[in-house]
């Protein structure tokens, strides 16, 4: 990753202006050309490191969400993970080191929609989902610092 890509990721994981020429606006702030920005973004897209440019929706206003965990017998984890992945309401789905070993985020238009999905999961897997909707945010995700002297533990 070149220096311009690092600077772009450090500066613009939030705060991309909503204007007609956003890549031009990013370029002006970083002192490069619009084509430089588009080229770096296209390269990140090719490697799969770019998910997208755009909004991360505010869950509390854009619908309902919950962090959910399942305690899956080890022999079944790939099969259960594949089923969970197949649900359109699931975005992140991680295996973690705990008895509750499968952790995923459910999002949907309403809490009642999520309740129905949780019931489906329970019936399909025979496992009782641990349902942990947010009570209060103290810090929301603003992206990841990229530089070596950043706050990311190296």
């Amino acid at each position, binding site marked *: 990753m070149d220096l311009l890509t690092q600077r772009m990721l450090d500066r613009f*994981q939030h705060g991309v202006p909503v204007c007609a020429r956003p890549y031009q606006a990013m370029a002006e702030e970083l002192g490069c050309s619009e084509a430089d920005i588009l080229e770096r973004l296209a390269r990140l897209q090719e490697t799969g490191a770019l998910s997208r440019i755009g909004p991360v929706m505010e869950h509390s206003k854009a619908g309902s969400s919950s962090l959910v965990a399942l305690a899956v017998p080890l022999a079944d984890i790939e099969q259960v993970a594949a089923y969970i992945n197949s649900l359109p309401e699931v975005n992140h789905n991680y295996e*973690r080191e705990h008895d509750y070993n499968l952790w995923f985020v459910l999002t949907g238009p309403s809490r009642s929609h999520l309740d129905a999905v949780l019931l489906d999961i329970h019936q399909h897997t025979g496992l009782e989902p641990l349902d942990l909707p947010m009570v209060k945010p103290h810090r929301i995700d603003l992206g990841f610092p990229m530089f070596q002297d950043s706050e990311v533990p190296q």
Partner: protein
Amino acid sequence: MSGQLTQAQRETLWRLLEQGLPLVPQPYAALAQQAGCSEAQALAQVQDWQQQGLFRRFGVVVRHRLLGIDANCMLVLDIPDELVDAVGDRLAASPGVNLCYQRPRRPNWRYNLFCMVHGRCREAVVRHVDGLLEQHGLSQRPHHLLFSTRAFKQRGARYSMPEMLND
């Protein structure tokens, strides 16, 4: 060129926006073409959504694992209810903490405060978390570090357009 979008146009624009801006100099013109409206209308609508607070952030969304940030730790703590607000605020302001949320306790789940800490290697993240706990006097509080061992899915959330935005 200005004026309200129809409900169908707004829904189309919302869905397109969730998939991300196209990598062309005038991305809103491209979205507008697909939604059947003008660039100015599309832009005004997205600015309106932003002003309504529907976006937590608007920017480059990365898959951190593919950028080498692949030690992903969820730190969970059991903090007495009367202290959890203050502890949450202090941890949220600490370096290396990407997310900090309160979540409910359950009969078989005692932890009520969740922090995400990401880093380039596991040992560094463990050291960092140990340091944070010590600094904030939390080492003796019940806590657990849940590292992720596999990512089965990592993508943006898809919502249908919120009902509050409907006509």
